[in-house]
């Protein structure tokens, strides 16, 4: 595709659209249709439709829809005001604090999801430490690269960039972490015979667990690759959609989106590698024994 040069030049001016919307809660950015509180109330009609479907087909999901909708509203309104506040205060430590809170909640979610159903030796606290640190390293390095080397944001902590970008990175890293850890544990358990066959021949734990590790990392990375394959074909990514809704030229929006996609690939790969290599160590004793607590 040939992109006319002039168009690209024009497109560079506006900032990330979705964020621009939040920057000033009172006045919408130019050219965007305002969503008033009345409009929001009206949108609840769509939840009522879902409740109607649930009633009609006896899905017993009415409560779920109502609680879900209320939670979504409360959480998003809170986040909206917090972001407005952070943007207004514009202090580096407040931005870092926000990133830390995001990382902590992602860690919490990832380690809860990755624990698996079976009673493994590897306790939650350990998994918490591993996923938190891996996400910190993987996501932190990627965020630093994208904001400081690539976008060169000014000042370095510019919340309008750091917070949404980190949110996307950590969200993906969280999914990959949970997938990788859960898969590694289940592979080591189901491939126990193979792993011990390696150990019995004098293999190191790294060698013995190579195949479970490979499968865990593959499982964690494939959704990211699928994302690259289908982006723009099946659906427009949320961030790009937001920018376009906010009036940004699609040509700038796609460039942001490309950076974002590659950023997610890098962060996911780094995080997954760290999680799998570290988590694997917790399954072996110093004497190269596989220690999974088998239900007796």
């Amino acid at each position, binding site marked *: 595709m040939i992109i006319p040069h002039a168009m690209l030049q024009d497109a560079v001016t506006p900032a990330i659209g979705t964020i621009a919307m939040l920057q000033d809660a009172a006045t919408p950015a130019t050219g965007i249709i305002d969503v008033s509180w009345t409009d929001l109330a009206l949108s609840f009609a769509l939840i009522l439709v879902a409740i109607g479907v649930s009633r009609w087909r006896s899905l017993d999901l009415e409560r779920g829809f109502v609680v879900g909708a209320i939670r979504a509203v409360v959480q998003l309104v809170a986040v909206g005001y917090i972001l407005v506040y952070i943007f207004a205060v514009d202090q580096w430590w407040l931005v870092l604090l926000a990133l830390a809170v995001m990382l902590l909640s992602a860690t919490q979610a990832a380690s809860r999801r990755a624990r698996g159903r079976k009673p493994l030796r590897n306790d939650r606290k350990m998994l918490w430490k591993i996923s938190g640190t891996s996400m910190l390293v993987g996501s932190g390095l990627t965020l630093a690269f994208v904001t400081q080397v690539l976008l060169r944001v000014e000042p370095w902590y510019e919340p309008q960039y750091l917070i949404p970008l980190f949110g996307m990175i950590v969200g993906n890293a969280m999914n990959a972490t949970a997938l990788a850890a859960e898969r590694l544990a289940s592979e080591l358990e189901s491939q126990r015979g193979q792993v011990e*066959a390696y150990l019995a021949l004098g293999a190191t734990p790294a060698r013995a667990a190579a195949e479970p590790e490979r499968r865990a990392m593959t499982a964690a990375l494939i959704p990211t690759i699928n994302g690259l394959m289908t982006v723009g074909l099946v659906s427009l990514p949320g961030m790009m959609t937001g920018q376009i809704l906010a009036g940004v030229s699609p040509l700038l929006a796609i460039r942001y989106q490309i950076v974002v996609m590659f950023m997610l690939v890098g962060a996911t790969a780094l995080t997954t590698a760290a999680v799998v290599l570290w988590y694997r160590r917790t399954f072996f004793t110093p004497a190269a024994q596989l220690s999974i607590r088998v239900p007796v």
Partner: protein
Amino acid sequence: MPAGMADTSPLFSLENVRQARGDAVILRDLSVDIPRTEITALIGPSGSGKTSFLRLLNRLDDPVAGAIRFHGQPIDSYPVAALRRRVGFVFQQPALFAGTVADNLNIAVQLGGPEAQQDPLPIDRVLDAVELSPSFADRDTARLSGGEGQRVSIARALMTRPEVLLLDEPTSALDVEIADRLLRTISRLPAEYGVSVVMVTHRLYEARDMSTWTIMLDSGTVVEAGPTAQLFTAAANERTRAFLAVAK
């Protein structure tokens, strides 16, 4: 062991060994020697701790208490990889790696350290030792029968040139006829490869016909050990007699 001194200590000796998993006690007050003999059989009712015992001997597990010696030295004084090359383990299920039979044997050589690599055993010869024709080298392990798989896993364990081979019920998943053939193969290994075999079995005739020494376990401890002929004809322990009588 200082150089030049004849090593007269038993192959393995276990002293007050205790093994537990969580709250469940698996082995208790277990003290026994495994002599340097051709084939030692571990017998006992199921759940008596035979497999857990065997796993201690190449440190797939460590006991929670007690001492284990190999050639008179604490078993944990040997580097674990070196110990495992000297003490091979064949599992109840073959646990073969994906790929061909030759791949499996070559992986064992790679893992076998310098001794195994400098002068690797020819694959044909090892296959012959477990009574498989040379054409098996290129077979995919996924296409082997149970008996063939178990032969390959014995061959794989031989590739590191072990001096002891631990076999955990190698015939339990096999038909009687195929099991008998495999047992004949196993009984030739001590003479041909100079390995001592320690074998868990739940089939008493296997122990009686093949082994030179028998250890009887019950409820996680050794109730009797001695030369096989003596144990099978004149067991000193009542539980051993009862077990042998019932199992007949």
